[in-house]
């Protein structure tokens, strides 16, 4: 997983970086396993199938959007507009439903809309050369604003029962949500693209040195443009699912979700500077955030503490490998001098 895939694309350019980020991915996976074991034995009701279902349902959208966003972060860019895309797509979905279209027609339309929203980001970043951080702060406000323009502060809630119950249904009596299956397919697909294809290697190369990537024949602008488009489509898919899962299309759906997705990605050991990290770490990061929240809720810790835990986890996950690398570096230097 992260351990054997990340070093290769990092290449000769970043031995220091490899030191810094490698532990983070594996550390977080180990941490997740440890946490699950401890929680299963010490938190009453944590290890039940019912609870596992709830936990996974809450993680699904975060993990889903984290997939393409990880690819974007690996190339050294960022997209803060994903949650607003979810909101706008949800609002449009509600409005189209009110207008009388069948969901079979609405869903593809909404996905196309997501692609267009992503393409706007991608165009501004790759063709006009604007910094993605500033662009997507702009579209974060723009898309959320348009969501309110489309739907105002009302909610559309009369979606067909068959769809909304499917969204929260589970596979047989296992408690595992049905929706985890398509998510897993997407995880595997993204993992293969990132870690086992030339495209994936190109993404790491771009993140390490865009100029070097360009000189070695990678069409940086086009690749990034498509990444933004894909992120838009996947966020739209997240919007559709969010709407069905809560049975309600609202303009403020998923407000602030971008921070949780980015927290999961960074917790998973992906460098915010691009060029390193792996997908399994990210999934572990998303699961860890979800499990910690879930376990704390079960032992009735107020939700305020959850925020503190999220914040401290995030900072620790980034500071710890940094400190470890520094200690290691010092030890290495000492015998030499």
């Amino acid at each position, binding site marked *: 997983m992260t351990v054997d895939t990340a070093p290769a694309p990092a290449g000769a350019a970043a031995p220091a970086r490899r030191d810094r980020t490698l532990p983070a991915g594996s550390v977080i996976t180990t941490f997740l396993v440890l946490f699950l074991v401890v929680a299963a034995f010490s938190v009453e009701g944590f290890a039940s199938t019912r609870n596992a279902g709830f936990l996974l349902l809450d993680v699904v959208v975060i993990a889903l959007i984290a997939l393409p966003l990880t690819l974007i972060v690996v190339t050294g860019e960022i997209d803060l507009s994903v949650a607003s895309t979810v909101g706008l797509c949800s609002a449009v979905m509600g409005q189209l439903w009110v207008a009388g279209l069948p969901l079979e027609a609405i869903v593809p339309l909404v996905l196309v809309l997501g692609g267009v929203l992503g393409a706007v980001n991608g165009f501004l970043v790759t063709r006009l050369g*604007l*910094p993605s951080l500033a662009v997507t702060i702009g579209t974060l406000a723009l898309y959320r*604003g348009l969501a309110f323009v489309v739907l105002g502060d009302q909610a559309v809630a009369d979606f067909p029962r068959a769809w909304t119950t499917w969204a929260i249904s589970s596979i047989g009596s296992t408690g595992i949500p049905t929706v985890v299956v398509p998510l897993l397919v997407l995880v595997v697909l993204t993992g293969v693209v990132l870690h086992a294809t030339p495209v994936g290697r190109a993404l790491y190369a771009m993140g390490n040195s865009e100029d070097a990537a360009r000189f070695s024949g990678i069409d940086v602008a086009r690749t990034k443009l498509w990444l933004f488009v894909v992120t838009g489509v996947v966020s739209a898919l997240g919007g559709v699912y969010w709407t069905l899962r809560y049975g309600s299309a609202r303009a403020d759906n998923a407000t602030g979700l971008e921070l949780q997705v980015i927290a999961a990605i960074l917790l998973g050991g992906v460098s*915010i*500077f691009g060029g390193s990290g792996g997908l399994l770490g990210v999934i572990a990061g998303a699961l860890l955030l979800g499990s910690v929240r879930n376990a704390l809720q079960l032992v009735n810790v107020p939700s*305020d503490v959850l925020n503190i835990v999220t914040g401290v986890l995030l900072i620790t996950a*980034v500071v710890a490998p940094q400190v470890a690398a520094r200690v290691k570096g010092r030890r290495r230097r000492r015998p030499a001098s």
Partner: protein
Amino acid sequence: MSAPVAKPPAALPEELAAPERTGRRGSALVHRLFVVRELGILAALVLLVLVTVVANPRFLSGQNVRDLLLSAAILTVLAAGQTMVIVTRNVDLSVGSVLGLSAYATGTLLVVAPGTPVVVAVLAGTAVGAVCGLLNGLVVAAAGVPSLVVTLGTLYAFRGLDSLWASSADRLQINAADLPSGFKALGGARLLGVPVLFLVAVAVVLLVGWYLRTFRSGRELYGIGSAPEAARLSGIPVGRRVLTAFVVNGALAGLAGVLYAARFQTLDTTAGTGQELFVVAAAVVGGVAIFGGSGSVYGAALGALLLTTIGTALPQLGLDPFWRDAAVGALILAAIALDRALQLRLAARLRGRNARRDR
């Protein structure tokens, strides 16, 4: 910011460094372009006000303008602090949470000790913010972790601390009735008809602007943002300067919390939620480059004023207030596109001059 030290903006420092090579005429050109940039926001602001006044003459009524200035005051103070951080190629996303924490701390102090002089309350709120800023700055400067990540973490942590404090003290909301009248008077106080809170914001902007422009350490903040490595090599204590920027920004976010408490007088733990985006937006709209090294606090202040004005002007123009966020977003995109165009033009003109001289 430190994050994706992306390639296009990386060109910025070089071009901004160029004027030093081309001498006084070059730097005059750079200066003129930046003045043009700030005048541009001012023009947009004036245009917006004019259009709104034509649609609704009462827009410029005394009370309306005072409300506008009061709302702008808080965002302006936050934007002034954020500018100091952004010019060093960092960002502080935790300011909304710091504002909330400081507002709640100030409120609690005044409820527990109603006799506290207003000045002490202001200083206490500011100090709470400064401590938060110190924490951010220490992790960023000492551990060398990107500020985007650190302050995203403290955005959660400070907010959690705020609500944990409120729930454990069993005081989830502080109402106007709980606050001493001396402090409440601050919210409505006027000097020559101008709200005092706005004057505080103006004073903060002038002070920060003066510091950034005239002090050696202020100029060094720009140097750090333009080229961190070059700054280090030329002997600038990068860590200490960045730490200072974070502490000052935290203190100003704390002060903004006090202003918030004085203005709204009803405090719960959601105060300032989501403000970080508007603050960064104000700075960016005001011409502060998100990757550091350029921009002025005056621009950021004008950006804050423009964003606030849009919020109040839309309903007056007969537009749904729901359009506000969309307008803000469009404005951010327009501003960064304009900056990019100016930057390219500047680079082309400086190149032209160099070429002529070399001949």
